[in-house]
């Protein structure tokens, strides 16, 4: 019997993404290079050039064109992929709306990187948090294994006929994208059986031609279409849970739910994190527990749809909750904080604080997490910037 895992290999997050794309039998790839996404594109170009992956490869002249071209190829009926980062994602912005509005079930891998000025290529999540309202599902990975698996899982979810929305899966610049760790490579056969071929009901139809994305006035079903997108996103939570569980069964994998609860059962104080910085947070939780403080962590694997109910369940009994934000919003608190507070409003009586960390690749150390927990124990309210302006 063929093993469910083809092999175990040491690979970077970007290699893991490229392998996930290969396992998904993507037919059209279109991408523009940007540090630190570049090695995803290079790896894929090599796979295509070597005949390992039977895919068209469009070397576009911009990220804007990268997304516009894969929207078109996807709607022609071919499973399509792109990848980007930082300014590339910002440059795509209008086409992000166009992709979800066209109900094109694309997957795009994003290496989270800071936005200038000043120029900075290091890790930060403002690029994709800025895109939270574009109708894409958002997955934030903690490991290279998740980076590979969320491509396969991403297509499975995106192509579900009751969802039909694009998925972006995120990995931290350098911490994941360029750092090697062991990854179970899922077997091609199991991956093919799992994902199948792209089967779109809504695609270019030459026998019954229509206008894809055509004009609508205020009395046309414009608002209904937007509501359908919103409903599909909201209702996807149940389906995502089922799909993750299905994925774990098929591949003997260990993906969390939309959130991962770490030592939350009897916790008094907890943090909410996304991405690879969660690992340092988990280490700190263990360390503080050894010292007698009952700490815990909620990691957001999915940020859109927002798993508010899962967070609500997890925070019951907490004395303090800190939302760790690796992005910056000006003139209001961070987006994750806003989402968490709105999910708990009137339902949970727990003080919530907001911590802004790690902008432009600034290190987030164990002592920084210790400071956040300390702050949770001592006070409540207000926002803190961590590891900033210190000597």
């Amino acid at each position, binding site marked *: 019997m063929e093993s469910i895992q083809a092999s175990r290999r040491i690979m970077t997050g970007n290699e893991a993404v490229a392998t996930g794309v290969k396992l998904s039998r993507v*037919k*059209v790839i*279109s991408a523009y290079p940007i540090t630190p996404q570049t090695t995803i594109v290079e790896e894929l170009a090599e796979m295509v050039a070597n005949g390992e992956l039977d*895919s*068209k490869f*469009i*070397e*576009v*002249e*911009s990220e*804007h*064109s*990268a997304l*516009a*071209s*894969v*929207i*078109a*190829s*996807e*709607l*022609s*009926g*071919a499973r*399509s992929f792109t990848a980007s980062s930082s300014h590339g994602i910002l440059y795509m912005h*209008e*086409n992000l709306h*166009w992709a979800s509005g066209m109900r094109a079930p694309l997957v795009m891998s994003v290496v989270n990187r800071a936005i200038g000025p000043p120029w900075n290529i290091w890790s930060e999540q403002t690029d994709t948090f800025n895109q939270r309202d574009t109708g894409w599902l958002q997955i934030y990975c903690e490991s290279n294994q998740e980076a590979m698996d969320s491509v396969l899982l991403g297509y499975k979810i995106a192509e579900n006929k009751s969802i039909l929305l694009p998925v972006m899966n995120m990995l931290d610049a350098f911490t994941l994208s360029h750092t090697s760790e062991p990854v179970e490579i899922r077997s091609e056969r199991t991956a093919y059986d799992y994902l199948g071929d792209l089967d779109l009901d809504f695609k*270019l*139809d*030459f026998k019954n*031609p*229509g*206008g*894809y*994305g*055509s*004009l*609508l*006035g205020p009395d*046309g*079903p414009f608002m209904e279409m937007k509501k359908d997108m919103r409903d599909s996103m909201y209702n996807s939570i149940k389906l995502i849970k089922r799909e993750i569980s299905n994925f774990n069964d098929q591949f003997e994998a260990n993906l969390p739910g939309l959130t991962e609860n770490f030592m939350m059962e009897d916790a008094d104080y907890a943090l909410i994190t996304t991405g690879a910085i969660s690992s340092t947070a988990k280490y700190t939780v263990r360390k503080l527990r050894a010292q007698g403080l009952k700490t815990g962590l909620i990691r957001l694997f999915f940020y859109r749809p927002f798993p508010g109910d899962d967070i609500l369940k997890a925070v019951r009994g907490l004395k303090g909750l800190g939302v760790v934000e690796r992005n910056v919003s000006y003139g209001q608190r961070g987006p994750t904080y806003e989402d968490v507070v709105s999910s708990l409003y009137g339902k949970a009586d727990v003080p919530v604080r907001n911590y802004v960390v790690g902008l432009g690749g600034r290190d987030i150390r164990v002592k920084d997490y210790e400071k956040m927990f300390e702050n949770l124990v001592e006070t409540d309210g207000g926002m803190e910037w961590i590891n900033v302006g210190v000597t």
Partner: protein
Amino acid sequence: MPLTFPKEEYMQKGHSACAGCGATLSMRYVLKALGPKSVVSVPASCWAVIPGEFPYTSLNIPMLYTTFASSGASISGLREGLDSQGKEDYNVVAFAGDGGTADIGLQGLSAAMERGHNVLYVMYDNEAYMNTGIQRSGSTPYGAWTTTTPVGIKRDYKKSNKKFVADLMIAQNVPYVATATIGFPEDLERKVATAKLIKGPKFIQILSPCPPGWYYNSSDTIKISRLAVEANVFPLYEYRNGKLTVYKPAKTVPLRDYLSLQGRFGHLNDVEIGEIERALEERWQYLLRREKD
């Protein structure tokens, strides 16, 4: 003389274009030459509105709408997507206005042509942003009034020359480049039919007169289209295998005959018209020199 082009119609009645719209005839003639196995990608433009409101469409072929700057990228994706499914025999066409081509879409067009996809890019040139209400584009001719070159008391008409995108495509050595206009439908149909047989990137710029934007009587569209060629304002040429061929009109007319029918040139005095005439003559001589090379 009876017209010789195909009788089949792929554009139906019931569209929402203005009376006398040149862009509408451009689409109709292009589709006649291409046939039913075609898909058209349209960016923000008059043609994003003309086919009608969802779920209706006045075309008998599928249309994929795309963002303003994305025509070049959109047809690239369509082509590769269809090819990956063995549908190499379908025509993939962009149908974009002059703003969407000469201005915001130029980068995407240039890149799509450079990559060499088997696609046809049609620029329907009505010489301004007509869908937003007559703002100047890079393809607006010298001397024209538009709402953003409003003449006024300081004589602020358009003071820079028309950007000829077809010339840019020739400079890029695109395998097939042509200019055409709806007043010469057989010539237009022949050029599209020629393009259809060439495997690779093709570019055709079609002068498409616009009654409200150019301020003329809507019954004069064909007349103005023909005068544009005969007055040397819009020379017809074809570039193939590195060779330029320029059409020499059977009769030529003074520039004034072309300008005087259009309100957008109504403010020009004799001196200004003389300057435009000289510039057009220079360009004509340049094209003839290129033809000999």
